[in-house]
């Protein structure tokens, strides 16, 4: 359980976290979502007692992190920036941390096995690839078998197999009754992993809702392929319904759900070749929420269309920047 109350962090004149209050509950995976520079990492560092809040407070299982008798078994964190000396082996790194709590080598070897680092455990961490470094970071977070896990962009640098593993691990840990708080700037990532989502932009909480609700709120758009596009537009046109045609015979309809569109088509004997509710609405909702609060923008507008569902982080950034060009700051 993580509880933030009016949490503020200022770096000089810059306010990174601007009075946020939220509760992260045990038993579910909570996504922490926001564009670059939104304040996710800063908030997580404050939870771990590394950065000192400029105002407000944050507690972990009822107490500030530093007040716990056994901090490593209360919370484990994978932070954004590297937190490993390159000259030390993975195993020695973990042993050094474990020994502060009187935790022995058995647990160290256990997390090494869990994270798939057995073969390289005695090699210097400085030679690790990005993904192996990330695995060692996750092993560090798991070391005390903590009640709360704080993972700052945990899938960063992992291969598809690793990404899947982290998702399943997060869900499994939550199912055991642990608190799992996981940040990302990709809505799609959070949608796949989390049950609950807290959206932050420019240091302020924009949404704090179950993921399912988050999707519903946005309404949906439906992709429809039909040889009779003109008639379908006719019969579906109503207040609050927008139809866009991306190419001949392919429509994006929002304001009506797939079921209603199918019924209308049947009523008017219109042939449909495809009727697909678009998952990208998740991205749209997120984009809409954060469009006023995007911290960094690339200078040149991107060529990507705003409706493309981003799969890669780079593409997502493009979409973000594309949709916020020209915002006055």
């Amino acid at each position, binding site marked *: 359980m993580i509880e933030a109350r009016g949490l503020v962090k200022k770096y000089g004149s810059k306010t990174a976290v601007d009075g946020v209050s939220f509760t992260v509950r045990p038993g579910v995976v909570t996504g922490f979502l926001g564009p670059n520079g939104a304040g996710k990492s800063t908030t997580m560092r404050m939870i771990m007692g590394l950065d000192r809040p400029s105002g407000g407070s944050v507690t972990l299982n009822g107490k500030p992190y530093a007040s716990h008798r056994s901090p490593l078994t209360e919370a484990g964190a994978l932070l954004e*920036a590297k*937190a*490993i*000396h390159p000259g030390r082996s993975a195993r020695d790194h973990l042993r050094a*941390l474990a020994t502060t709590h009187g935790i022995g080598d058995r647990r160290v070897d*256990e997390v090494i096995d869990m994270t798939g680092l057995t073969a390289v455990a005695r090699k210097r961490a400085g030679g690790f690839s990005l993904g192996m470094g990330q695995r060692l970071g996750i092993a560090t977070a798991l070391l005390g078998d903590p009640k709360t896990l704080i993972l700052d962009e945990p899938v960063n640098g992992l291969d598809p197999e690793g990404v899947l593993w982290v998702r399943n691990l997060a869900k499994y840990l939550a199912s055991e009754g642990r608190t799992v708080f996981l940040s990302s700037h990709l809505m799609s990532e959070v949608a796949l992993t989390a049950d609950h989502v807290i959206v932050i932009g420019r240091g302020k909480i924009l949404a704090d809702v179950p993921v399912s609700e988050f999707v519903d709120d946005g309404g949906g758009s439906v992709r429809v392929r039909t040889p009779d596009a003109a008639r379908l537009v006719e019969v579906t046109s109503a207040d609050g319904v927008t139809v866009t045609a991306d190419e001949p015979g392919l429509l994006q309809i929002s304001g009506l759900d797939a079921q209603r569109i199918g019924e209308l088509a049947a009523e008017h004997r219109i042939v449909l070749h495809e009727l697909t509710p678009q998952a990208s609405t998740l991205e749209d909702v997120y984009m809409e929420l954060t469009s006023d609060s995007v911290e960094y923008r690339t200078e040149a507008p991107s060529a990507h269309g705003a409706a493309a569902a981003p799969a890669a982080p780079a593409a997502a950034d493009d979409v973000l920047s594309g949709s916020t060009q020209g915002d006055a700051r």
Partner: protein
Amino acid sequence: MSTATAPATSAPTSPSIPKSAHVSFLGAVRSEWLKLRTLRSTWWIAGLTVVIMAGIALLGTWSLSTFIDTDPEGAAQAMGVMPNGAEFATSGSLFGQLVLGVLGVLVVTNEYASGMVRSTFAAVPRRTPVVLAKVVVLTLISLVTSAVAIGASALVSMPFFDTLDVTIPMDSADTWQILGGVAVFLTLIALMSFGFGLILRHTAGAIFTVVAIAFVIPLVLQAFQTDLIQNINKFLPMNASTAFTTTTDAGAAGMELLDPWVGFAVMVAWAVVPIAVGTVLLKSRDV
């Protein structure tokens, strides 16, 4: 623990973690020792300290004995009173202090450079125990390294003692004041360097500061023979420690020095003050 009514927060704990697991000062000391000994740089620096100090002692006694062999009268005039042999065995400390100073700096700055400091403070969130644990392991490794370096220096310079007509009288309190004093002095310099590392959090900046205070400034100030400057110079680490570790006029080299125990106290202050300031800063700053 795992009854059906247990709240959701009491997740199962791995059986390989003892129920009593908790953070402790002893644990922090063990951790710091493990961190120190698992870095190659530690052993390089310790080895270099021994080699440099023994090398300087060897060169010094060897060249002096050659001088005496070739020009006994000139040598006698130049030397005046011969020092205690222990002073030959510690003659490399001026350079040895710089090498151990680097160790002291690195104990803290390498954690900032690598980001390890975030893991350290995630495991031991209270700042003061981490500082004290580092002080403990740094003190131990510095004392042992100094003792080995002084011992090696004594061994390599002894063959020339006959020619130089000196001994290391083991039953003399002076001998132990010199040997012990230099070992403590080297350790205090390592601790002072650690303090500057804590304050500056940056390897190059901290080493630069240590070299300036421990080496360059006292040598430069020696060139200005005004009362005010010499009074300042007395309080710098080099001369404060010489006040304690020199028992004959020859070692003082004509310098005006503090009383031995005042010098010792000043030297302790040079270590304690930067560490205290660094700790206060550490508690108020972000990691």
